């Protein structure tokens, strides 16, 4: 354990960007947790007389069409966006890891059937699939999470399957079986924990991607519904004002969204280096 930490420290020192990214993610988490206490105004309360005001001392990031404080909305949105990204990725991670490792361990007919289903999913234009799912289920937060999780699923299944397949006949697995552990318990107690680190890298990369995905859906009108503050929908709404000169409507949400995704992506890269020196690229 201490070796891993030492390695992490070494990587972070040699890799200042990862350190910055990790700090950024930490900051986002703090914002999300303490949002109600940090935001200067109520992110939902409108004040039409104060609409479309440029950044000022009172409203650091300006106000939107309904006179709501953009900074407060950005802070409040952190919670929802992180929740969407984290739950979507956790669902696909959990489901993918279990299904994939069972298939990789058992092989045989089940593996072939699941493999075929994964092939079908992989052949889909995934963004369009997400759009169709949200359109079919209705654009509520939980459905956006389900759609995002669903289109990620095949990658996790494949990944887990391949990792387990390699380890299936390893000595320590044989040993566990010899000690009388059932197949299920071998998978859950021995194989799954063993492949987790490798999959963790994917998680961080996917978190950023899930936020982008939600933003894209919002732009097409298939995202979270107003007046809930969410980065993607703020960017999409703000983009409508790009020609009319109210730049702060798109600039601040766009910048926040970009920074968040950037932090997750860079952290993912860094994690790869820390967890698996062999995969260091």
């Amino acid at each position, binding site marked *: 354990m201490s070796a891993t930490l030492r390695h992490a420290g070494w990587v972070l020192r040699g890799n200042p960007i990862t350190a910055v990214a990790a700090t950024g993610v930490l900051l986002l988490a703090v914002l999300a947790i303490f949002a109600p206490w940090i935001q200067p105004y109520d992110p939902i309360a409108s004040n039409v007389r104060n609409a479309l005001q440029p950044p000022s001392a009172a409203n650091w990031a300006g106000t939107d069409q*309904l006179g709501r404080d953009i900074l407060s909305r950005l802070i409040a949105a952190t919670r929802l966006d992180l929740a969407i990204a984290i739950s979507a990725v956790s669902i696909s991670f959990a489901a993918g890891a279990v299904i994939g490792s069972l298939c990789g361990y058992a092989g045989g007919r089940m593996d072939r059937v699941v493999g075929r289903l994964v092939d079908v999913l992989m052949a889909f234009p995934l963004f369009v699939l997400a759009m169709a799912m949200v359109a079919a289920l*209705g654009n509520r937060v939980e459905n956006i999470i389900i759609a995002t999780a669903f289109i990620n699923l095949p990658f996790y299944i494949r990944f887990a399957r391949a990792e387990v397949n390699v380890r299936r006949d390893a000595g320590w697995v044989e040993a566990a079986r010899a000690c009388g552990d059932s197949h299920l318990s071998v998978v859950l107690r021995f194989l799954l924990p063993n492949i987790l680190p490798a999959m963790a890298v994917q998680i961080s990369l996917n978190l950023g991607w899930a936020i982008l995905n939600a933003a894209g859906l919002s732009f097409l009108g298939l995202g979270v519904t107003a007046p809930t503050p969410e980065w993607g929908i703020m960017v999409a709404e703000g983009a409508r004002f790009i020609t009319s*000169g109210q730049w702060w409507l798109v600039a601040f949400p766009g910048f926040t969204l970009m920074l968040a995704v950037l932090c997750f992506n860079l952290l993912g890269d860094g994690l790869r280096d820390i967890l698996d020196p062999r995969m260091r690229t």
Partner: protein
Amino acid sequence: MEFNRRQGLQGLLGVAAGGTLGAATAGREAAAQTRAETLRQVMGGVINSLDPTTPGGTRENFGLAMNIYDRLASFGRKPGEGGMTFDMDNIRGELAERIDRSPDGLTLTFHIRQGATWHDGTPVTAADVKWSLDRAVSARSLAPPQLSSGSLTSPEQFKVVGERQVEVKLPRPDRLALGNLCIPFAMMINSTLAKRHATADDPWAMNWLKENTAAGGAYIVETNRPGQQVVLRRNDAWKNGEGGTPPFFRRVILQTVPEASTRASLVERGDADLAIDLAASDVPAIESRGRVKVVSIPQTNAFQTIVFNTQMAPFDNPKVRQALAAALPYEAMFQAAQFGRGRILFGARWAEVPDAAFPRTMPLNLDIDRAKALLAEAGHPNGFATTFTFANSMTAFAEPMAALIKESLARIGVEVTVQKMPDAQISTMVVERRLPFFTDIGSAWLPAPDYFMRTYFTGTHRWNYSGWNNPEVAALTQTARFETDPAKYEAAVKRMINLVAENVPMAMVWQANQDAVMAKDISGYTYWFHRQADFRDLKRG
């Protein structure tokens, strides 16, 4: 002299390049000349059929059809608030040079204009007119239900009575019969050409006319890329317009550009000449920069409405509807969603309606105390929870409306969940009466007060948004429709308006402006009932 192979090649290339360059320059000069006589309109929607009666057709099809096809008659134009608008009370002949109306109002006789021809040069005959009218009431298309609103229902009503004369018989003196012959669905078709492409399964050539035309109107389709663009060429032989002069523009390009902000930039930079569907949020900025002309005309035959489903609890209780109507933040919504651009329909203070105009300002006012009292009377002193729905395509203005409604209704204890839906889904939900509370836009081609009432407050079709079923209103719409005595008509309409004000099946809130943004040198823009541009009105300089 030593011949250098590379030099030789360069020479050859030079000649080739010069050749194409010369041709291209000549082409550019010609292009500059025709550019002034070309109108380029950019729009968000698509044209999916050249026949406006095609089921599944878009609104853009209607405007196009007005320019390609003629009708027997046409509404006039009049100056109105903000600019020229159509004039339903002043109908002139279009393909008909004269229209005779019998004293009992039961017979209309149309005399086809002398020398009128189709695009292929063949003369327009009475048989063509009869076939076109027969098609409009018989084909399985969008046309028959619309024409029935003018008592035009059967081919037996249309008779050829001379070489260039056609008679239309009416069962009752319907005030909307002639108006219905001015709309896109009543287009006149070259029947000889169309019949050549009719089949046993498709006697009215519905399939062929989707992608082809058999017309005689002011413009001829040059190219048509469905969903992308249509290019029109002027029909120089056309003399059926106001004053008999052909339209100004030789070419018209109608192009689909989905992004509203891109459309705005195109017109502002002078690359496009006209856009009528920009986001309301863009228009004030465009106006203030002053690079283009903005013609803002209230859409007097359309309205934005906030609907209560009268067939679903708790909105089946008129008290609940009155309470919510008293808690809607009208002025704030109008400013935030519409930037104050349009004509308001709220804020009146009368108890009895003073005149019979409709749509009109109604006694809808924000009064939270009254709303609370009404809600308590209705048995919901602590409020209730409901869902407010709007369509995806309305996001730009409905999203701010929804946010304000949610906020305001929370003050009387009504908890609102906002829901956004793709347009196709919302239309299904409305028809099946599954939405409790939503916003929509209504419009009428023939904006007579009784027609509005009949369409939007009676019946089981989608347009009775609130599913309201008031026997008195249903009966009054039927009598008003055929009422020839103006005083009695007015009394009936007033009674209906009072009933709507009292029961609030829906709160009609405003008539948004149509903001037509165009190059500075374009003039003549007219707001039409079909809410599309008519290129025959426009000119440059």
